[in-house]
């Protein structure tokens, strides 16, 4: 079935109908989440009780809006903190890895490359428990040996950041490596001929060339960190990021305030996602 080969009208029509149904299936859950954020009722379900902004700006119980709900605001702050760290670390290490894999050849390079890809095929829950077990073992050993407390190695934000960093770095490495591979080394050589130092040439020529990929992977890292659930679930301590807070609220029974948060998340994800595509778009 291709455009140049004619097909019976009925088959074509069925195909179109299927594609339309598929996109409806994709859009439906997100659409209802958004719509019920404006329902003037304490349950995110029918019947429709009228339009309201209360779940965003409301101040009186039970209509407490997102912007006045302490626990959710705090969780958003925690998520942003984690995402900033994860993104910065992942991009820094990812850039180093890109230079290592594209510019250097050494023994065991292909083995190291496969090891670098491994975090992609380890289920997030397993990644979480393995880091939890390992960090606790170190903490126990250190505490037995020194008699001091090592709270940083107990479930908490540090472990959440490390856990997310451990697999998001792979994505950053792949994105930045792909861009570095397209770089023409003669540009850097020209800079060296013109008297630049090695580091100077990289800073002035190579890094600006890599910038779109670096920005794109930073945005993708923030997005992935914000949304991560499985790994975070196993490593979280007393301060929980947004997805964990929402999960707890969802299990207790939800009010449309969750729809309002979700709507904000959907808007944020769409903006960040499109941003990452724009960065990666070849300009020349």
């Amino acid at each position, binding site marked *: 079935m291709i455009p140049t080969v004619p097909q019976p009208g009925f088959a074509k029509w069925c195909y179109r109908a299927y594609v339309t149904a598929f996109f409806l299936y994709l859009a439906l859950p997100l659409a209802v989440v958004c719509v019920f954020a404006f329902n003037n009722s304490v349950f995110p379900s029918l019947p429709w009780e009228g339009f309201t902004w209360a779940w965003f700006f409301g101040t009186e119980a039970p209509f407490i809006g997102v912007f006045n709900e302490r626990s959710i605001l705090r969780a958003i702050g925690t998520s942003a903190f984690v995402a900033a760290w994860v993104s910065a670390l992942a991009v820094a290490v990812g850039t180093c890895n890109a230079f290592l894999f594209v510019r250097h050849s050494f023994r065991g390079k292909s083995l190291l490359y496969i090891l670098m890809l491994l975090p992609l095929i380890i289920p*997030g829950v397993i990644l979480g428990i393995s880091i939890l077990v390992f960090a606790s073992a170190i903490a126990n050993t250190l505490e037995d040996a020194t008699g001091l407390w090592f709270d940083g190695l107990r479930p908490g934000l540090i472990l959440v950041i490390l856990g997310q960093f451990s697999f998001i770095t792979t994505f950053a490495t792949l994105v930045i490596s792909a861009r570095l591979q397209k770089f023409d080394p003669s540009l850097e050589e020209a800079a060296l001929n013109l008297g630049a130092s090695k580091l100077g040439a990289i800073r002035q020529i190579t890094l600006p060339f890599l910038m779109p990929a670096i920005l794109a992977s930073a945005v993708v890292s923030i997005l992935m960190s914000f949304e991560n659930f499985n790994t975070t679930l196993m490593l979280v301590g007393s301060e929980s990021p947004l997805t964990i807070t929402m999960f707890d609220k969802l299990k207790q029974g939800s009010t449309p305030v969750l729809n309002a948060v979700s709507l904000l998340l959907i808007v944020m994800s769409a903006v960040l996602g499109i941003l990452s595509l724009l960065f990666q778009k070849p300009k020349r």
Partner: protein
Amino acid sequence: MTTDGSKLGFYLLLAPILLWLVVLIILPHLGLFWVSISEKIGPREFQTGFGNYVTFFEEPLYWRTFARTAIMSILATALTLIFGFPIAYYIAKLTRGRTKTTLFLMCMIPFWVSELVRTFGWMILLRETGVFSNLLQYLGLVSGPVEFLYNDAAIMVGLVYTSILFMVVPLVTTLDSLDDSLIEAGYDLGGNSLSILREIVIPHAMPGIVSGCIVVFMLSLGNYLTPILLGGKDSLWFTGMIYTQFITRFNWELGSALGFLLLALSSGVVFLGLKLSRQSLADTMGRA
């Protein structure tokens, strides 16, 4: 490119990746294995042995849940392939330029959104007081509220929804590279749509099908949110058991053993898929 001056640079570049992989991936997994073969014999007293694995095989609840998770994941993978293939084909072969970009983008937007939000959406749609139940009552097809949530079908809908993009993207990439003239030649030689699909399109798309299936199976197996929120009391999922052992029961030894079994299954399937399709991990994952 390597000169004497860059020797130091090379080691400086090697340090972060080694630190990352050794400290956060390799050592934790060795540690996990070590804990999984420790048996508790008293307070803070352990001996080495495979007792936790024996528990897994002796307790029907554990291995049944394991098998159930694997079978449901295979089913989810098959459904995702069946539903995703026509979409990928439509995007790759029947649309051009702007329409293609738009459709592709429309496929991607739901997956930028947190899985929690997507699952929440399905809960609103499927629950007893939800949209579908009310719609059916409004249409007069049923007399009372219907509960669509908390069963295996709901889990399946959620799993397919959550992972379909990871099937569509590799399929679009491979189908894009299939030259239309090959399909035309098939028609010229007297083939019909079905035989062309079987003889030309599917063989060409095989690498995409394999990498899509591997990723979808892995994601379903390791999923936690969808089965827990959409499934009922009897719809156990293996990741849920691992969570229970670790966080609720505080039995890390058994939890580690269960975790290791899940990891073994997931890696085994990836390995098998790659072997069967004669692809390397680098090619398959690099495409994602």
